[in-house]
């Protein structure tokens, strides 16, 4: 029993969903999503029992590319994120009328598969392949099932695709170059290369371009807001909840350990970029009219902070980053779902057209509020743990990073409360707004449950990720 079964399950799931036909697709997909989650947990138990789940199979002989998956704590953390969010996201779409559903849900599972592969692959090229594969489904999901004017959407989506692809192709070049040096794409081999400072710098930048677009960091974020707005909410969830984390994860797993000298040398620049993203994203979010765009920019701010944490190159930065990745993943999915629920009822995403929802839908309003406060990392929510740790990691680099980065708790409060006030509070508007249905409630409650639980008891996660992060740190400081 090894880790590759997880991928197989998801892939088979995608296939079965496709064959199941439009009627059954959603349920089948949900089923497989849950199975994969269960299996992830099972594997996790094995992993904690000290069992080795890695796989390595020879694949291509010239150049040497092997099908090798490596499951360490970090990977498992991301797998958990993926495994938990996938069924939630699928469930969240139950309220919508999805045309030719079988393709839709098949694509979702396929994307989940690709992302899981990205988190697991320990062979550079295999990793790259999964990385690219994850791009295809989201492209079609956004293109076909998206909303808004078709032409606008096309522009946004194509821009997104080409932009991200451009980034990752430079990463590919870097990988090939490294292969020329190491004669292998294996993670260890690449770690153990000793490259000159210049080489490291170029490699670092090549990776950075790929990740900066994906995460996204300013000023590489121009695709984000539009795609988030145009994509169907499910797509937005997949993007913001999991796919962004691919970039952040890769920074820790690939970029920093392979080019540590460059990472150390230019650390302040990249932290600065992340922090700038925090401020910039928050400020832009203040005056957004469209709720999805607002959330997009808030997400820009949060990932900026996470990225800064990763580039801080210390244990707290890393640990906080990983925790915050998960926390942000949960919350942002919840928030986008809330936006979707509003859209289902009121058929608008313009904040000024909402208001007074709390009067008619107290339960929904309360849950939305919890999500809002989680996203501004109120203590006792998971996000606080992550953000606190990240900020402390930054503090160890320089107090001002922590202070400026910390602005997010002020600005974040500003725009999120503004959003809450103008969407939920105030006098009711004439439209009738019925409270959450069962499935909607289930989604929100499960997310909130996760946030609260890990907010008070993050120990299992920290224990899971710490060892692998420490090894990576050793690698960086070799």
């Amino acid at each position, binding site marked *: 029993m090894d880790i590759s079964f997880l991928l197989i399950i998801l892939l088979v799931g995608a296939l079965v969903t496709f064959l199941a036909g439009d009627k059954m697709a959603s349920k089948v997909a949900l089923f497989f999503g849950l199975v994969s989650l269960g299996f992830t947990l099972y594997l996790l138990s094995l992993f904690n029992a000290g069992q080795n789940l890695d796989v390595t199979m020879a*694949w*291509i*002989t*010239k*150049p040497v590319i092997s099908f090798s998956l490596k499951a360490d704590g970090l990977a498992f953390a991301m797998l958990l994120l993926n495994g938990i969010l996938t069924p939630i996201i699928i469930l969240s779409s139950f309220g919508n009328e999805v045309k030719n559903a079988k393709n839709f849900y098949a694509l979702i599972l396929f994307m989940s598969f690709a992302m899981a592969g990205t988190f697991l692959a320990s062979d550079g*090229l295999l990793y*790259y*392949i999964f990385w*690219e*594969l994850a*791009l*295809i489904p989201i492209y*079609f999901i956004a*293109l*076909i099932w998206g909303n808004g004017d*078709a032409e606008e*959407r*096309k522009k946004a989506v*194509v821009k997104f*695709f*080409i932009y991200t*692809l*451009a980034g990752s*192709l*430079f990463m*590919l*070049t870097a990988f*090939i*170059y490294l*292969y*020329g040096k190491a004669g292998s794409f294996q993670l260890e081999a690449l770690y153990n290369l000793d490259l000159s400072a210049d080489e490291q710098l170029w490699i670092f930048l090549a990776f950075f371009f790929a990740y900066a677009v994906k995460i996204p960091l300013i000023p590489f974020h121009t695709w984000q807001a539009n795609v988030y707005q145009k994509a169907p909410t499910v797509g937005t969830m997949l993007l913001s909840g999991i796919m962004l984390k691919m970039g952040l994860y890769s920074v820790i797993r690939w970029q920093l350990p392979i080019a540590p000298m460059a990472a150390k040398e230019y650390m302040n620049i990249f932290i600065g970029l992340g922090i700038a993203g925090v401020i910039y994203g928050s400020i832009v979010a203040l005056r957004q009219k469209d709720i999805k765009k607002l959330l997009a920019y808030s997400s820009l701010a949060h990932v900026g902070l996470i990225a800064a944490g990763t580039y801080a190159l210390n244990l707290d930065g890393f640990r906080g980053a990983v925790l915050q990745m998960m926390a942000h993943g949960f919350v942002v999915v919840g928030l986008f779902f809330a936006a979707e629920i509003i859209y289902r009822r009121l058929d608008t995403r313009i904040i000024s057209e909402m208001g007074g929802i709390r009067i008619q839908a107290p339960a929904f309003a309360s849950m939305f509020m919890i999500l809002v406060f989680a996203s501004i990392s109120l203590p006792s929510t998971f996000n606080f743990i992550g953000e606190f740790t990240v900020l402390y990691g930054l503090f160890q680099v320089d107090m001002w990073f922590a202070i400026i980065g910390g602005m997010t708790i002020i600005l974040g409060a500003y725009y999120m409360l503004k959003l809450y006030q103008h969407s939920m509070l105030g006098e009711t508007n004439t439209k009738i707004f019925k409270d959450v249905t069962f499935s909607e409630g289930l989604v929100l409650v499960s997310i909130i449950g996760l946030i609260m639980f890990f907010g008070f008891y993050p120990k299992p996660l920290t224990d899971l990720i710490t060892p692998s992060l420490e090894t990576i740190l050793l690698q960086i400081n070799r």
Partner: protein
Amino acid sequence: MTTLIAITGLGVLCLIFEIFNLRKGIIPVTIIGLLATLGLTMSEYGTEASYYNNMIVVNNFSVTFSSLFIVLTTFIVAMSHNFYSNHPTKISDFISIKLFILAGAIAMVSFGNLAMYFLGIEILSIGLYVMAASERLSIRSNEAGMKYFLMGAFASGIILFGICLVYGAMGSFDVAEIASLSRSAELPAWFFIGVIMIVIGMLFKVAAVPFHFWAPDVYEGSPTLTTATMSTLVKVVAMATLFKLLVVLNAEMSYAFQMIIVVLSIASMTVGNIMALRQVNVKRMLAFSGISHAGFMLMTLLSLSTAAGTLLYYATAYSLAGIAAFAVILYVCGKNENEDIVNFHGLGKTNPVLAAVLTGALLSMGGIPIFSGFFAKLFLFSDTISAGYLFLVIIAVINSIISIGYYFKLILAMYGKEPNEERTGTPVLYYAVAVIAILLNIAIGFFPSLIMDLM
């Protein structure tokens, strides 16, 4: 050797069938024959042999490429059934011409003597001139044929002159002798000039910048099936031949010559991709994309000793994707007078399968995993980097980003737009070819070693 005979025989057989009025049987028989020949050819794998005092040399290179050509031809022949359904009287001619083209192609990759090479290229070309102009009543077809013929003949002249100079320098047409001599004494300048002229002739055939101008016009004007032949079979043949020529003539690659290759490959891929961006006619677009791919394949010439496998892989990936794409184009544009993108609107809704296939083909050409096009580019890049041309690879990368632009224009048209016509009929053979081709493409994507380890 037997391959060559078998193919030619098959061609003749077609004509005989016509005489005895067995038109129905032609295509099945041809396909069966081709597959049989394929088996025959593959059986020769691993053997080194030469026939008719080195007129024909059989080795892994020739065998593998011949097999690829046969496979491609099989697809093309299979598609001819529907394509020529409305003038059945000509079908035998067309099929046999295709087979003769194939024969020429095989001669080109397995020549042991420049005479054989010259004959091969001429057989191929003349066959193509005919095919290009084969729609007698269509001006576009005529123009295409004319252009192709004039420029082709011109190129043949240059090649001939090259051969002549090489002969003058070496006193022999036998490549083995030439190779041995070229290693020994100091050589007269003509030799190199001759080689260069031959190379330029071939560059014309692969449509590399600045010898590419014919390609878009001819591709657009010719009957679609001929375009398919040119853009898949012929391009691959020419590329393989160029590669083989440079290997056997053993013109040791001077730095200057490598620079030429680098410049040409950069020019080809860039011009091809840029020009393709604004094309509305799909065939024309694919012509430019073919030019850019020629640029990519030229990169293999920078590491002659090692890149044979890569070239084979790239050629296979590219041509399979091309076949798949053209199968769809043939279906979609069968009854339209032009091949503009508008014909593809909403294909994703009306014919999801074909849309998926075309998408796959385009993604493969664009170099997206898990399609074989990606691995082709990967291997190519890694070869080139290890040959020390990092900047070339970076430019190639930028180009593949540009190329996504127009490949996705087509995909968008298929999925993003509403169908503007209802498409009737499901020509089984088109479907079969399309699906099989794309599946093969993906298969070698999953197991690149299948191809890579052949050389």
